[in-house]
């Protein structure tokens, strides 16, 4: 990833606490400044991912999310506000992110991911964070991630449980290896607390930061299963599926 643009004095002051992380430092911060991340959607998970990436000094966020703010968004979608009810979600997200980090470039797309727009949106990013609620969107991003050789942090949740893994084409399975089929009974609306979506989002943001700044050990070939009901956290192994229709021959 490019790391040409140096940090300004304002950026050094803003990010000094994280630049004190010895294996991250100013070099890591420059990598974040020069990075672009696609986040879809930017609700309970994606909005929190975007907020932490904005706070960390990512240079550019491409955000995809359709629709207007509803009351039922507000238990978890922290980029939305009560005052913004009935107004565009993506504009609310962009406004809140720019309030936190006015240096951030936001590409605000008032659409959800589809097979038609995924190639163009993925092409603009160095990394994808998959936070979409529907499997058609997730699989569309996965297919492009594999085709364009872009890493994808994949996060999911249900009730008080969360799943997280980092998918890197050529090094790990893809999402279709893990789940070959769309679960037919899955619905966009499901039980969850905002603190659960926020928890998995914070972990996903840290995965993205580590990958972009090339430090730490990302969660490759394993899935974190977090159960916040009894606070058990464990990891299971993942493997590439040789006959995967998406990545099997790549």
């Amino acid at each position, binding site marked *: 990833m490019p790391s040409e643009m140096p940090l300004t004095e304002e950026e050094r002051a803003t990010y000094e606490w994280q630049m004190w992380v010895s294996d991250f430092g100013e070099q890591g911060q420059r990598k974040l400044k020069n990075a672009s991340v696609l986040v879809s959607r930017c*609700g309970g*998970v994606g909005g929190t991912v975007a907020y932490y990436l904005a706070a960390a000094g990512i240079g550019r966020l491409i955000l995809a999310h359709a629709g207007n703010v509803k009351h039922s968004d507000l238990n978890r979608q922290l980029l939305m506000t009560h005052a913004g009810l009935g107004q565009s979600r993506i504009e609310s997200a962009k406004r809140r992110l720019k309030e936190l980090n006015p240096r951030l470039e936001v590409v605000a797309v008032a659409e959800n991911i589809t097979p038609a727009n995924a190639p163009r949106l993925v092409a603009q990013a160095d990394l994808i964070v998959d936070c*979409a609620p529907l499997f058609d969107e997730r699989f569309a991003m996965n297919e492009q991630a594999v085709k364009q050789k872009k890493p994808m942090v994949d996060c999911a*949740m*249900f009730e008080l449980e969360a799943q997280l893994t980092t998918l890197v084409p050529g090094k790990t399975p893809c999402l279709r290896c893990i789940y070959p089929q769309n679960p037919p009974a*899955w619905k966009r609306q499901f039980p969850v607390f905002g603190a659960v979506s926020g928890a998995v989002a914070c972990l996903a943001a840290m995965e993205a930061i580590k990958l972009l700044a090339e430090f730490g050990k990302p969660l490759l070939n394993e899935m974190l299963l977090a159960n916040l*009901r009894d606070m058990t956290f464990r990891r*299971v192994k993942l493997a590439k599926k040789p006959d995967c229709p998406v990545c099997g021959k790549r």
Partner: protein
Amino acid sequence: MAIRIHIPTPMRQHTDGNAVVEVSGETIQAALDALGEKYPAITQRVFDNGQVRRFINIYLNDEDIRYLDNLETAVKDGDEVSIIPAVAGG
């Protein structure tokens, strides 16, 4: 000792809310059959024509059974079996 099967939240309606069900058996298939005997409704959620549904993964401890001996994978007392369904974000 027994084999402990971890039930994911979306399926606990079929196990009277139990997060863990203890069963006996010598293979994953036998353990899941024993689960189905206790809670018949869960069998249809996990299996389709005798095969594990393709949006569900079964783990023996931390290993995906697809990369072991699938449903014929041997199990022993103290093993942990997990049913992990696909979930999404939002």
